[in-house]
C-alpha cells in the first residue's frame, strides 16, 4: 500500500469547509432533539394513557426503522407531502432531531424514574404544582443520571451525521468523497475525514468528562 497525501492535502480546506455543515446539523438537531425528547419523556411518565401510547409509538417507530430511511423519506418525500423540495441541510436537521428525540426521550424517562418517588411526594405535600415540581425538583436531579448518556447520544449523532452524504449535503464526509472521486484516489481523503471526525468526537468526549466531573464534585 502506498499512501500519497501530497496531491490531497491542497483539498484539505475544501474538506474542512464541511465542518460548518456537520456542526450545524449536530448542534441544531441535538438541541431540537433534546427539547422534543423532554416533551416525549414527560408524555411517557404522564398518567394519561393516550400520551403514553403516542410517545411510546413514536419511539418504537423511530428506533425500529433505519435512520437512513427516515432521512430519505423526509428529503425525497417532501415534494409529495409539502409540495416543495426542502433543502438537504434542513431535512438532515429535522431527520436527526426526530430520530435522536426518540433515543433521548428514553434516556430522560429512565433518568426521571430513577429519582426517588419521595421527592415528588414531598413537593406535592407542600402544595407545589406538577410543572414546577418537574422543572425545579425532578429534572435537576435527573440531569445527573441523564447527562452522561446524553453526551453519548451526542457523540453518536456526530458520527451518524455522515449519513447526510446520501441526501446531497456537503458535509465533511461528502466533500472527502468528492475529492476522492475527482482524483481517482479515495483512501487519503477518506482517512482525512476519519481524522476530522475522530478529533471532533475526542473533543466531545473530553467535554463530557468535564461536565461529569463538575456534576460529581457538586455531590
Amino acid at each position: 500500500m502506498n499512501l500519497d497525501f501530497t496531491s490531497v492535502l491542497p483539498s484539505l480546506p475544501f474538506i474542512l469547509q464541511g465542518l460548518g455543515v456537520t456542526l450545524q446539523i449536530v448542534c441544531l438537531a441535538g438541541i431540537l432533539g433534546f427539547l422534543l425528547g423532554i416533551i416525549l419523556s414527560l408524555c411517557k411518565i404522564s398518567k394519561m394513557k393516550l400520551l403514553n401510547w403516542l410517545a411510546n409509538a413514536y419511539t418504537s417507530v423511530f428506533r425500529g426503522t433505519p435512520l437512513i430511511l427516515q432521512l430519505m423519506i423526509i428529503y425525497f418525500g417532501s415534494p409529495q407531502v409539502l409540495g416543495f423540495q426542502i433543502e438537504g441541510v434542513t431535512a438532515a436537521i429535522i431527520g436527526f432531531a426526530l430520530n435522536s428525540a426518540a433515543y433521548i426521550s428514553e434516556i430522560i424517562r429512565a433518568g426521571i424514574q430513577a429519582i426517588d418517588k419521595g421527592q415528588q411526594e414531598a413537593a406535592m405535600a407542600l402544595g407545589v404544582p406538577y410543572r414546577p415540581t418537574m422543572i425545579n425538583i425532578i429534572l435537576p436531579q435527573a440531569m445527573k443520571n441523564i447527562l452522561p448518556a446524553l453526551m453519548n447520544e451526542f457523540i453518536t449523532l456526530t458520527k451518524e451525521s455522515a449519513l447526510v452524504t446520501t441526501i446531497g449535503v456537503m458535509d465533511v464526509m461528502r466533500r472527502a468523497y468528492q475529492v476522492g472521486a475527482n482524483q481517482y484516489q479515495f483512501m487519503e481523503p477518506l482517512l482525512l475525514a476519519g481524522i476530522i471526525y475522530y478529533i471532533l468526537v475526542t473533543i466531545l468526549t473530553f467535554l463530557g468528562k468535564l461536565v461529569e466531573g463538575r456534576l460529581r464534585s457538586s455531590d
Partner: protein
Amino acid sequence: MIKVEKLHKSFGKNEVLKGISTQINNGEVVAIIGPSGSGKSTFLRCINKLEEPTNGKIWIKDEDITDRQTDILKVRQNVGMVFQHFHLFPHMTVLENLTYAPLKVKKITKSEAEKNAMKLLEKVGLAVKAQEYPNKLSGGQKQRVAIARALAMNPEIMLFDEPTSALDPEMVKEVLDVMKTLAHSGMTMAIVTHEMGFAREVADRVLFLDGGVLVEDAPPNEFFSNPKSSRAQDFLQKVL
C-alpha cells in the same frame, strides 16, 4: 379540623382501609398506632390526597377534599407532611429547602421567605446549617429540617409518618423534642408512630388501626392501661 367519614381505600383487589370514620379537632394531637401493614400510612396519605380514597369523604376545615372541585394544592398548603425518610431536596441548601415552596406557591418576597425560614431553623436548632446541603446533615438534623420545611408553609395541620423510625436511637429524642414543642404550641397533629412513650406523653388521643379497621379511639391513659379489644391487648403486649 379533619373529619373522616367511612374512608375506604383499595389497591387493586386489596382493601387496605375498610371504612374509617373519625375526627381530629383543632389543636388536637392524635397518635396513630397499629401493626405493620394495618394501613396507618395509607390513612395518613389519604388525608392530603397523596393517595386517592376509593370511597368515603374527608373534610379539611370545611372543604371536602374528595370532591373533584376542591383545589387540592390549596388544601395541601395548609397540611404539612413529614416522612419517615425525610425527602429533603438534595440539590438545594437547607435554606433553599425551606424557602422553595413558599416562594413558588405563596409568591412572597425572597427576603420575607428567608427571614421566616431562619426563624424556623432557629426553632429546630439548626440555624447554623442554613447554607449546608442535606447530605452534610445527620438523620436527626435532616428530619428537623424536614419539619421546618413543612412549617415554612405555615400550615394549620401537620401529618407525621413514622418520623423517627429511620433514625439512629441517639437522634430520636432531638426530633421528638421538636414535635413536643410543636404540640404544645397548639398545632393540630396526626402522628403515625411506634414510639409508645411519646404517644402516651404527648397525644390527646390514640387511634389504633388493625387490618384497615379503626379498632380503638381513646385517650392514651385509657388505651395503654386498659385496652378494650383483644387485638389492642395483643399488640401492646408485643411492643411494650
